[in-house]
């Protein structure tokens, strides 16, 4: 069992030790994500605390079949930050019927973290190498919470262009993770 799995198990049992484990591993990252979205230290503190409390209270439940604890926690913090910055109170998000990518099954913290760190480095590098207009599109979507229509208005390009840029960017990012064929923009 990895440290992450142990933390989640302890939280499910109602043990504060699980929260300490989770916070000590990911508090800095969660704070960074909230800060990136909100650009306000006090608001970021509030959101991170709310996010961890929602995990503690079971409102945000970890699904091992939906990816690792780190990604899950980042998503919870990101969504709460977006809701806050856009004045939405705890918006519920309907899930689409997708076949989710499961978290790695390794029982070794070291191996799991090496693989995860490599993936993050690949994604970070690929994000930096994206054409500027694709990178801006992704950042407006992911860190500013804009819809494609809003991105279209902000960047003053047709909606179809925003859709195309989003798809190309995701194809590139997917390619660096899974070795799929990457189609570069014309």
């Amino acid at each position, binding site marked *: 069992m990895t440290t992450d799995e142990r933390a989640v198990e302890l939280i499910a049992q*109602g*043990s*504060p030790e699980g*929260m*300490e484990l989770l*916070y000590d591993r990911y*508090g*800095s990252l969660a*704070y*960074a*994500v909230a*800060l*990136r979205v909100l650009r306000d*230290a006090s608001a*970021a*503190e509030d959101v*991170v*605390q709310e996010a*961890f*409390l929602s995990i*503690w*209270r*079971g*409102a*945000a*439940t970890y*699904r091992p079949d939906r990816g690792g604890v*780190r*990604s*899950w926690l*980042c*998503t919870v*913090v*990101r969504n709460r930050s*977006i809701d806050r910055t856009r004045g939405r109170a705890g918006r*519920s998000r309907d*899930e*689409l*019927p*997708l*076949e989710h990518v499961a978290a790695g099954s390794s029982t070794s913290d070291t191996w799991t973290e090496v693989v*995860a760190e490599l993936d*993050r480095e690949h*994604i970070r590098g690929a*994000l930096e190498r994206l054409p500027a207009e694709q990178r801006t599109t992704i950042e*407006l*979507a*992911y860190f500013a919470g804009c*819809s*494609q*229509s*809003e*991105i279209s208005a902000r960047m003053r390009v047709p909606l179809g262009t925003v*859709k*195309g840029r*989003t798809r190309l*960017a*995701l194809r590139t990012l*997917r390619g660096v*993770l899974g070795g799929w064929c990457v189609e570069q923009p014309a």
Partner: protein
Amino acid sequence: MTCDESELLLAAHAVGCLDPGEETGLRVHLEGCHDCRRLGGVLLHVGTMIAGTVSPVTPPPSLRRNLMARVEAEARARSSAAVPRRSARWHRRLWSRVPSGRRFTAAGGLAAAAAGLLAAWSLAGPHPAGAVAIRVPTCGSAGAPATRCVLDYDPDRHQAVLTATGLTLPAVLGGASAQTYEVWLIPAGGAPMPAAFLAQGPDGGSWSSVISRSLHGSAAIAVTAEPAGGSLAPTGPEVLRVPLPPGI
């Protein structure tokens, strides 16, 4: 919708920028397209990794201190709240007579009165075998911080009685209630489900509701102020929230 069009929308979904109106068509396509369901899962995985590329920033020490203080306080409250009670046969009979699934009907009024009696009972008397009493001394949200509540849950019958005190009267318009308190079950990771309405008890100071649905799989119960007649999804401010123990 073609798979090509679906991919455009799945990419948008993965980074959270799908326009709300486009989700319905995508959902229909996904129901019948295994390849797109798989692609959507992969893209969503890629999307969730974007947040992880942010470089960590050390938060102020007060964040950990405040968080853990609240967590430890809630852990203490939980351990003292979930107390099994001994049986009381008469209560089971009364409980079984409370109609379920009503809104503001005559039956609902009778149910509310019965719930009020049950609430009074739940605060003082013994509970049925297997029932769980969850006492939450401070469950009020920002709008009603003085709210306290007790949740009596009978897991065998999948029924619960929620009793709250410290709530203010909902808004009144032209002599009639313009608002009502609606009870929601909050599933773990899902959208809130309407469960019941709170009715004012005979003493005027307590509010009760019978929840005739299983709490299994729910992470919390919440109450919001909604327009009279209720809503299908929460729209008003949350006035209380009862976190449920894992495995209830």
